């Protein structure tokens, strides 16, 4: 291993979210390493918007994200499972009735 190679810890990991100009919300596009938020923004611009993919960038330290647990997916999302009446298609509309 070359000298110095392990002298410095990895820069922290940042998750990158980009909004394109089509009225969509910010979307996760990937991650990168940077020493601080300013550098993360600059790097995100160079890595993820070389072809005008975005008009706004959010950077979030990966360590600051709390995510749901995949293994608990079943129980966690269970409350939404049995409420089919939340979808309009649950209800039958009488023949000929419009604008519902």
């Amino acid at each position, binding site marked *: 291993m070359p000298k110095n*190679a392990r002298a410095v810890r990895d820069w922290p990991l940042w998750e990158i979210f980009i909004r394109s100009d089509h009225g969509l919300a910010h979307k996760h596009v*990937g991650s990168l390493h940077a020493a601080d938020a300013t550098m993360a923004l600059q790097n995100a611009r160079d890595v993820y918007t*070389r072809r005008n993919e975005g008009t706004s960038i959010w950077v979030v330290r990966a360590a600051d994200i709390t995510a749901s647990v995949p293994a608990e997916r079943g129980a966690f999302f269970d409350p939404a499972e049995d409420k089919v009446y939340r979808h309009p298609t649950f209800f039958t509309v009488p023949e000929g009735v419009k604008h519902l």
Partner: protein
Amino acid sequence: MYTQMVDVEAAGAASDEQRRFDEKLDRGVTIEPKDWMPEAYRKTLVRQISQHAHSEIVGMLPEGNWITRAPSLERKLILLAKVQDEAGHGLYLYSAAETLGVARDELTEALLSGRAKYSSIFNYPTLTWADVGAIGWLVDGAAIINQIPLTRCSYGPYARAMTRICKEESFHQRQGFDVMVKLCAGTAPQKAMAQDALDRWWWPAVMMFGPPDSASPNSEQSMHWKIKLFSNDELRQRFIDQTAPQADALGLVIPDCELRWNEARGHYDFGAVDWDEFYRVVRGDGPCNRDRLRARVDAWEEGAWVREAALAHAEKRTRRA
């Protein structure tokens, strides 16, 4: 379909988790970073994705060699943008590998110490400007054929990285082909330069798809895991079928006297590949292996103070905030 697992750990736990994993593969649902996965699947992916990332990074060197000597300002800008894209590809892929629980540090270390492999094509030298054309046309062309199926691979972050990469690769291939078009329409020495580049890059490009299926022992498992969707030989054939007519259009001759269209097969037949050369280069004895690694090690060492200073600066600002 259930395939015998190669690692003991997973075989022992032919568990609910394993069944759920297999089911997802069958239904074409992507596997995501925090999902349960067999250890051998994870390891294979780390190896494959990081090798791929290393290839993008080392791949900047042969072309970087020509940035200052490109024949016009426009060509310089185009080549600069192309090489910058390759850096981006390396970064997308390192990020994808990191979602599997390896640190960037470890991946860098594996490359710099010579333990990790990268595509052997980048151990060939770029002797003339025509080589930049041949690389874009053939090497990026082969990469596209390799990578398009991977946009549908089973591991989500890898598939998404490949989607971004494939969108950018078409520009790479077109700009390379354009260099060849201009050279072939030029003076006799310019055309000869294009032919010479094709002569040197053709076989290494054909080798980019890896050893023949008969000598590719891990392929079957990878295909079951859907991190490889077509065999090496299938992809190689596709490359040759696509590229041969392009060489005709340029008026160049592919250096393979057995290359001819086979009406019955609906494919081009082609001559034997020198696999000894391939293994020699993979093992480290290609024309530029030492140079390439040296360049990466130097870049890493010369950048050490920058990495250190940036981190110290960020920490100081956090303390003051």
